[in-house]
């Protein structure tokens, strides 16, 4: 053949025969045609006929016209012809290769390839010698390969952001197959790929794309030596790194795939992928797994720890009613072994039936109830139930504890879905605790009993002691009033008397304290005369002050009403306790003062402020907080010096607090003490006595001073002059009496007479007596004295003296003293008693026996009584009566049909002129404070408790009827 394609090959009739011989036996198609149009075939072998689907030359001639043009698909001919011409004239010289379609005899279109050679032959001119073969099947295979390759690349490019191919790991030739064009990656990669070899490409890529921390590692791991090393053992591997982007770091991965290239070369496919989301998810998952692992570890160690404390430990899934034993009791073979799951509720109910003592069964059942567990553990971290268990006939205490277990899978609903539970034998502890608590209860009971006994003892002893004390004091007084007793005996009696009073005071204090401590001290709410309290307090404290040569002043600041509703006795006790202390702790020559006044009024109530001050020894700041503690004394030596139970202040504070008041104390050692008490009292409707402050106008007063000492007279005139009172003076008793008589005759009597006690010839008492004899007792007479007047008080009173004022007079207090004198005068003048005889009383009382007694009592004083058997009847009777027919109503409180309170309210609200005036007196078996309070509110005037003592009833009726 090589000879044939030689340029010098001469195709002649002879050589043609050779060609024919060879061609006839060739398996491939072989034909020769003339280059000159119409490209007539010179020869075609049998294989060509077969390619064209022809049986012999005749059929082939018929199909193709025996020309080259006739052999080529008409659509391909022009381009093929041109290509062939071009090729044979080109660089490769006389050779051509073409692929084109043919149309077979049966009409099928097939692909053939054509390797031709152009030559010139003597006999034929330019000819083409062509080898032809059917490549239709080969082409299809090739197309398939292409499709597969395209598909693989497409898949890869979809799977990766970027795909590189290192065609040859030795020559480092590489190419970019694909990259995401919108990724910033693309530009950098293109830049990187512009390098001639992979190593440079890689170096630049790492330097520009990889986060600094990964750069060192990446230079190595995507370097050729590393890739080759990896490919020795595997066909794929991956390298991960982090890219720093403007939007933050992102995780990338490069997948390397070994590629077997033609010629035994090894290449590498590199797929770049942004795996940030996956990595982050994975990291999160890893973290979670790690946490779970830790928790599991903790749980395990917890279980181990618990197991040492517990007889057995279980984990319970409450929602699923599933329990599993973590640690079983080694001594109890009947228990479920460790690791076995069992139904929770049923099993422990059974446990309860078998081992829990009857007394605790109910509690145990409700404790293990799943709903209860859930509820209880919502508020508590751990819940505990202790009970008595019985096992094999042995009783012992056991404790069941449950704690919520949170699993990572739990919903975030704060509901416990699983618990750990453990049983512990707590027999020893429990028995010990029970014994202790029993002992405590016993001790408490003993202490309470002892305390009750103490209170009862104190209370009864105090009463027991008080009875003889009253006798001692009473007899002492009687003995003292006997003028025949000798001087020394009188002195003894006086000492007995003062000691007895002191002792009585102490007993009263103890009694008060025990009543306060036992809560039996009650505060009454009754109308009382505040002026009277002041007067009594001033008398007592004034006397004590004079005895001790202290000055005492009592002032009212602003308004003080004459009547309030409250506890008269307690208020007086409070005042005397505080002032008594002041006197006790103020050395001779000091000052004790009381200021009282209203500081607020609201809602029918008034707040009174009492300021008690002294210039006594005072107290240190340290002691003040303990002042109100029972038996507290700043200096224990003072007990003997000042004599005290240490109960006065605690009692006072208790009393004040029980009256909802407030007590404050300020003190400075060596300077004195000030107590400030604030009390709120209910206002009384009752108006004050005839003497109102307004009536005491200094410039309208004319006062006579009788004193043998001219200086004293002068002094009195000066002092009284300061407050605007005109004052005349007499220098002896007889002169004074004369002047009084004169004034009286002129119908311009003195408004007030001050008489010195100690005077020659005629003393103050005698002078008073003569004045009273001459002009009656209308004008107040005040004895002026610097001495203790207690001894002559009775005699003075008999003589007609109204009160005492200590000398010398002070401008600041003289008006108050006078006002007191007027008040006292008026109270005494006014205080009359009504005659009860013939008074008509309406008695409402349902119990016949009680009614009989009251009627009998009233009959004693010749009163007329109408009896109503209940409140309703009483109301009807009152309404039906003439105006002013009844003088008073005695009202039982608890009655059928209508009680006393309601009846009183109806009567008070009735439209009659006497409805609001008629005295209504409550009668009740219980004088509880709240009852009294209620009856006062209902408009009752007084409250008597049954059994009613006749004297008390008479006195009340006298007073109330008189007032109307």
């Amino acid at each position: 053949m090589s000879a044939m394609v030689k340029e010098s090959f001469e195709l002649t009739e002879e050589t043609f025969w050779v060609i024919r011989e060879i061609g006839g036996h060739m398996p491939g198609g072989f034909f020769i045609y003339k280059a000159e149009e119409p490209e007539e075939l010179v020869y075609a072998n049998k294989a060509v006929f077969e390619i064209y689907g022809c049986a012999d030359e005749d059929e082939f001639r018929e199909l193709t016209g025996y020309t080259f043009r006739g052999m080529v698909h008409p659509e391909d001919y022009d381009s093929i012809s041109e290509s062939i011409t071009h090729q044979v004239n080109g660089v490769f010289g006389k050779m051509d290769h073409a692929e084109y379609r043919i149309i077979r005899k049966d009409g099928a279109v097939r692909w053939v390839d054509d390797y031709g050679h152009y030559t010139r032959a003597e006999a034929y001119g330019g000819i083409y010698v062509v080898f032809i073969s059917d490549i239709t099947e080969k082409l299809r295979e090739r197309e398939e390969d292409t499709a597969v390759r395209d598909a693989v690349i497409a898949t890869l490019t979809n799977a990766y952001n970027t795909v590189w191919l290192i065609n040859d790991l030795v020559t480092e030739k590489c190419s970019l197959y694909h990259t995401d064009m919108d990724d910033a990656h693309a530009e950098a990669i293109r830049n990187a790929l512009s390098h001639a070899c992979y190593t440079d490409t890689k170096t630049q890529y790492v330097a520009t794309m990889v986060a600094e921390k990964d750069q060192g590692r990446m230079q190595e791991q995507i370097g050729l030596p590393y890739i080759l090393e990896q490919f020795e053992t595997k066909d794929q591997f991956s390298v991960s790194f982090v890219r720093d982007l403007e939007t933050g770091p992102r995780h990338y991965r490069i997948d390397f795939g070994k590629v077997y290239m033609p010629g035994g070369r090894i290449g590498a496919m590199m797929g770049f992928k942004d795996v940030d989301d996956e990595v982050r998810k994975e990291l999160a998952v890893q973290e979670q797994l790690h946490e779970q692992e830790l928790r599991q570890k903790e749980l395990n160690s917890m279980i181990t720890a618990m197991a040492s404390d517990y007889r057995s430990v279980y984990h319970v899934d409450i929602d699923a009613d599933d329990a599993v034993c973590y640690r079983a009791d080694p001594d109890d073979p009947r228990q479920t072994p460790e690791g076995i799951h069992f139904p929770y509720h049923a099993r422990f109910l059974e446990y309860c039936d078998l081992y829990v003592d009857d007394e605790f069964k109910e509690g145990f059942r409700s404790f293990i109830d799943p709903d209860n567990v859930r509820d209880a553990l919502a508020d508590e971290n751990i819940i505990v139930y202790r009970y008595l268990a019985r096992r094999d006939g042995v009783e012992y205490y056991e404790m069941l504890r449950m704690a919520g277990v949170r699993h990572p899978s739990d919903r975030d609903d704060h509901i416990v879905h699983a618990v750990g539970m453990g049983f512990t034998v707590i027999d020893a502890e429990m028995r010990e605790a029970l014994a202790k608590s029993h002992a405590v209860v016993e001790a408490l009971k003993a202490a309470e009993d002892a305390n009750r006994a103490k209170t009862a003892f104190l209370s009864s002893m105090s009463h027991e002691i008080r009875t003889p004390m009253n006798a001692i004091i009473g007899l002492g007084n009687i003995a003292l009033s006997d003028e025949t007793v000798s001087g020394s005996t009188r002195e003894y009696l006086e000492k007995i008397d003062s000691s007895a009073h002191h002792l009585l005071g102490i007993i009263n204090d103890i009694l008060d304290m025990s009543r306060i401590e036992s809560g039996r001290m009650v505060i009454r709410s009754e109308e009382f005369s505040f002026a009277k309290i002041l007067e009594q307090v001033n008398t007592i404290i004034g006397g004590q002050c004079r005895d001790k040569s202290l000055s005492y002043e009592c002032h009212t600041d602003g308004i003080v009403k004459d009547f309030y509703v409250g506890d008269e006795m307690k208020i007086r006790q409070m005042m005397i306790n505080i002032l008594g202390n002041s006197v006790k702790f103020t050395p001779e020559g000091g000052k004790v003062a009381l200021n009282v006044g209203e500081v607020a009024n609201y809602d029918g109530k008034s707040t009174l402020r009492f300021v008690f001050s002294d210039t006594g020894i005072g107290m240190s700041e340290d002691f003040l907080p303990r002042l109100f503690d029972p038996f507290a004394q700043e200096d224990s030596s003072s007990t003997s010096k000042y004599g005290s139970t240490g109960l006065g202040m605690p009692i006072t504070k208790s009393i004040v607090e029980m009256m909802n008041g407030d007590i404050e104390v300020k003190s400075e050692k060596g300077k004195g003490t000030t107590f400030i008490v604030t009390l709120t009292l209910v206002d009384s409707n009752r108006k004050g006595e005839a003497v109102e402050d307004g009536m005491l106008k200094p410039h309208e007063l004319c006062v006579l001073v009788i004193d043998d000492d001219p200086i004293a007279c002068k002094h009195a005139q000066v002092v009284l002059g300061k407050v605007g009172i005109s004052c005349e003076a007499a220098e002896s008793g007889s002169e004074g009496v004369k002047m009084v008589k004169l004034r009286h005759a002129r119908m311009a009597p003195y408004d007030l007479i001050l008489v010195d006690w100690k005077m020659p010839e005629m003393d103050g008492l005698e002078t008073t007596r003569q004045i009273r004899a001459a002009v009656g007792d209308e004008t107040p007479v005040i004895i002026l004295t610097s001495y203790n007047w207690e001894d002559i008080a009775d005699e003075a009173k008999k003589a007609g003296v109204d009160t005492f004022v200590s000398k010398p007079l002070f401008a600041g207090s003289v008006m108050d003293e006078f006002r007191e004198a007027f008040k006292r005068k008026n109270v005494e003048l006014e205080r009359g008693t009504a005659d009860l005889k013939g008074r008509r009383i309406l008695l409402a009382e349902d119990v016949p026996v009680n009614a009989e007694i009251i009627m009998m009592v009233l009959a004693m004083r010749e009163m007329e009584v109408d009896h109503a058997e209940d409140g309703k009847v009483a109301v009807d009777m009152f309404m039906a009566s003439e105006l002013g027919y009844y003088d008073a109503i005695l009202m039982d409180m608890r009655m059928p049909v209508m009680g006393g309170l309601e009846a009183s309210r109806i009567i008070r609200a009735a439209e009659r002129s006497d409805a609001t005036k008629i005295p209504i007196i409550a009668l009740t078996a219980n004088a509880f404070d709240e009852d009294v309070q209620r009856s006062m509110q209902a408009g009752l005037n007084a409250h008597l408790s049954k059994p009613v003592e006749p004297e008390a009833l008479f006195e009340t009726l006298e007073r109330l009827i008189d007032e109307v």
Partner: protein
Amino acid sequence: MLTVEALKAAGAEVDSGLSRCMNNETFYIRLVNMALEDDSYGALREAVEAHDLEKGFEYAHALKGMLSNVALTNILEPVLEMTEALRAREDRDYSELLDKMDEELEKLRAL
């Protein structure tokens, strides 16, 4: 025949009762008889046994006032205790006190 002496012997504080009656024995004895015949005892028992503490208190309270007046101390004792418990509306077993009351009542009625 009920007499002051018999009452005294039975433990009543006759003196105080008498003093309230101006030491009029006849009058006092009449009141004691009235007090012994009062129907509040039965009513008290009935109310208490029906757990009507409100009513029970009313009756006990009425009895307390009446018995104090005539100073029938023996009957008064259980009545007093009941009055205080009923005042606090204690729903407890009063049968012992009621029996004591009735027992003392019968003793005096038998005089």
